[in-house]
């Protein structure tokens, strides 16, 4: 039984289900409830997170398990890491992924390394929820998509859901996974509606979804860019080219097999990623395919990404900054050398 639900509500639903299922699950972060110690609010929240995603959760579970923190990312992220190592399953919210600079040590050197450094004898079942994505004119310090930074670090798992249903299943999987997981919530998708299965379910990591089958071109979209890829695929279909669109859903682990099998079929690959182009998920996937499917490539691998520059504020600039169906089609035309596309 599915119901129509927003991306934001899917997150809220997943957190409640997780907290009901296991009392060791706590929600911790800046204003995840909001309004702590305001007399007239008592056990009510003011905000439920800066975008209201966790609204209502404190009312159900109380401030003992929905914990507002000072604006001190290193402090509370470190606490969440060790709370995980000592028996809780914290869901720690890093309000914007851009703030990782204030607590990277806790994620990169502590959470990611405990299990390995301690010879497999410690585990850190921590879920970090964080907000990424450009498109809201939030400028350079609130719009980045930094999943590549975490994908780079062994010991972390990286989740980039592109729709409400995936978000719910992947977030629940994250909470009950025994490794530290970072889940990226694209802020521009919070209002996106989709059919979501009711009740508890999980989606395993490392399993890509083929959103659309095709034989002429493979497009791998990262997070929200799956949607851009699907739009481009529609336009290409009108020109007679069938595009396979793949949503990897998790960047670490990465479902290499599904991507490589698709490229073996189509011989052409475009990766669409709104993150910076260098040392990114796009370059990583390009390298893997170049390595493992070289003989199947019938055209250079193209990456449609943001430019190597910070996210601009001004709305027209930000629009130019982002990948678009037109850029994807232009990239494809460079691959096949078909001038029919130049007017697209």
């Amino acid at each position, binding site marked *: 039984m599915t119901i129509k639900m927003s991306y934001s509500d899917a997150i809220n639903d997943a957190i409640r289900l997780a907290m009901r299922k296991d009392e060791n699950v706590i929600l911790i972060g800046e204003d995840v409830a909001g309004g702590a110690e305001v007399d007239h609010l008592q056990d009510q929240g003011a905000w439920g997170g800066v975008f209201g995603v966790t609204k209502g959760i404190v009312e159900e579970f109380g401030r003992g398990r929905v914990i507002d923190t000072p604006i001190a990312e290193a402090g509370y992220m470190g606490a969440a890491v060790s709370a995980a190592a000592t*028996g809780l399953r914290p869901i720690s919210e890093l309000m914007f992924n851009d703030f990782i600079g204030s607590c990277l040590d806790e994620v990169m050197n502590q959470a990611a390394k405990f299990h390995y450094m301690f010879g497999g004898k410690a585990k850190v079942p921590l879920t970090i929820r964080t907000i990424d994505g450009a498109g809201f004119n939030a400028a350079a310090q609130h719009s980045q998509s930094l999943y590549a930074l975490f994908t780079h670090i062994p010991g972390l798992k990286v989740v980039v859901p592109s729709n409400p249903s995936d978000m719910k299943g992947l977030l629940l999987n994250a909470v009950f996974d025994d490794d530290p997981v970072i889940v990226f919530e694209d802020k521009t998708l919070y209002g996106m509606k989709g059919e979501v299965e009711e009740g508890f379910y999980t989606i395993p990591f490392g399993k890509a979804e083929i959103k659309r089958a095709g034989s002429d071109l493979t497009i791998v979209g990262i997070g929200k860019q799956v949607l851009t890829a699907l739009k481009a695929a529609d336009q290409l279909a009108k020109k007679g080219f069938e595009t396979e669109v793949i949503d990897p859903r998790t960047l670490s682990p990465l479902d290499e097999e599904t991507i490589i099998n698709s490229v073996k079929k189509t011989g052409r690959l475009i990766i669409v990623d709104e993150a910076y182009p260098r040392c990114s998920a796009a370059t990583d996937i390009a390298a893997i395919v170049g390595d493992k499917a070289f003989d199947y490539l019938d055209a250079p691998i193209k990456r449609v990404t943001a430019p190597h520059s910070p996210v601009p504020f001004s709305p027209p600039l930000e629009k130019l900054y982002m990948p678009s169906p037109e850029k994807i089609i232009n990239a494809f035309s460079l691959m096949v050398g078909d001038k029919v596309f130049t007017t697209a």
Partner: protein
Amino acid sequence: MQAEKKASAKDMTALKASWIYQKMQEIRQFENAVHEIFEKGEIPGFVHLYAGEEAVAVGVCAHLTDKDSITSTHRGHGHCIAKGCDIDGMMAEIFGRSTGLCKGKGGSMHIADVSKGMLGANGIVGAGLPLAIGAGLTAKVKKTDDVAVCFFGDGASNHGTFHEAVNMAAIWKLPVLFVCENNGFGEASTFDYAAATDRISEYAKAYKIVGETVDGRDLPSVYEAAGNAVARARRGEGPTILECLTYRDYGHFEGDTQTYKDKDVQDRALNEDDAILRFQNYAKSNRLLGEDEIKTIDALVKAEIDHAIKFAEESPFPDASQVTTDVYVSY
């Protein structure tokens, strides 16, 4: 709330004193042995020795159980021993052997044993402070009476994580004891130079928690202050900053020429102010330990350390497959 009886060093039993003395000796002899073996080139990597600061780790951990957690620093061997980590496993870990506490994957700076509540030595200055409040948070959420102790140096008190963690522990009244081992040096820079405050315990005032400074070379002082702080934490009265003034007998790391040290101060620390010597005198004068007992413990510890070295030397290096295992629980 009922007024609790204050802990006092005078309540120390002979049994406790014997445990304390053994732990102090284990740390001292362990570190002296590591110092010698490192010089011979048999130990890889960075090594930071705890010798001289034994009274702090032992005086605090004397009040803890395996359910209590500690976080440590890069100078963590003493905390591990005081918290009950296996000495053979520690030595093997430092040697990078498969039988090490962390299978040889952590080394001197990352010895851990979660089953003993030892959440790991840590290569990052200041990292242990937020981790300690996390363990405190677990105790609070799970409503246990476990406490978390954070050992950190005077250097870390200048780090942002100290202030973030102390503030959070204070506002949430977490069962955490922040134990500052003020040995006068952050690496090669003096505490006087690097810190604006004269006393790290003074920060407690600003955070409205209890702060105290004791002679960290004097075991009874540490024992008594830590006993009271741990008891407060278990009663839900929140965190304490306990500053222990101590001295680092060796350099910052093995190989440090220590040109920044005052020779007179060092001489005094290594002789009349030596923590172990002082505790021997205390235990004898308070009839907790006799000379024979001390000699027996000394010999026992020597045999223990010799065994650890032999164990480490005879242990194999980890199998090649170990490079990529334990990265994830599942992947």
